[in-house]
């Protein structure tokens, strides 16, 4: 028989030994629970981000204004935009491109807004020194990150969430100068 129906009044209060194991199990749960915020603060691997609701057309209009006022050149057809140190920077995923290319100064903090105008995308920032940061980007949500580049160079952005026929060409760049 795979299981048996126990006799009535089968429940017995835990004895001393069982209580010790319950206590050890509970304490370990607390250790694991508090290790998450502690690692978040001291591990320096998890990013703190904020999310807001935004209409894709409003975000797109803000990106166009950002490009218009801060553009310093072009890489092919894609504008290179240099935000003010400490200021807001915008990157938009849509139409199989991360737009525009950002040019940042090493050691300065920026408030980076990322959103999508069409589908769900995966913002995957990759560069030298093994940098690999990934964020889910959804249309209708402004994903806000405070970033301080600590290494100069070229950082590539790829889309790592399948988004359609030209997902494989969806790339972007962040340039960091000394």
């Amino acid at each position: 028989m795979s299981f048996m129906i126990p006799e009535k009044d089968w429940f017995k209060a835990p004895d001393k030994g069982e209580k010790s194991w319950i206590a050890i199990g509970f304490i370990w749960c607390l250790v694991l629970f508090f290790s998450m915020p502690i690692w978040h603060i001291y591990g320096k691997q998890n990013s703190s981000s904020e999310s807001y609701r935004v209409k894709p057309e409003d975000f797109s209009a803000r990106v166009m204004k950002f490009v218009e006022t801060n553009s310093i050149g072009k890489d092919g057809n894609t504008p290179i935009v240099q935000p003010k140190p400490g200021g807001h920077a915008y990157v938009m995923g849509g139409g199989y491109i991360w737009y525009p290319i950002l040019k940042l100064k090493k050691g300065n903090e920026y408030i980076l807004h990322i959103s999508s105008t069409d589908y769900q995308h995966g913002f995957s920032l990759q560069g030298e020194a093994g940098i690999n940061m990934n964020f889910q980007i959804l249309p209708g949500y402004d994903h806000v990150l405070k970033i301080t580049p600590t290494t100069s160079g070229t950082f590539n952005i790829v889309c790592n969430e399948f988004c359609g026929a030209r997902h494989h060409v969806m790339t972007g760049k962040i340039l960091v100068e000394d």
Partner: protein
Amino acid sequence: MGNENTHWLERLMENPWMLLILGIVVPTISYTVWGVYDVLSLPVAPLP
């Protein structure tokens, strides 16, 4: 069932319908409803 002297945990474990209800209600409230509330309560982006 129904024995006043039976421990409440035993009565609960012997009641599959109550276990089914708790198994649906608890994750629905703590996961689904909380998640929907969290998404709907997001503020509008100021886009400074």
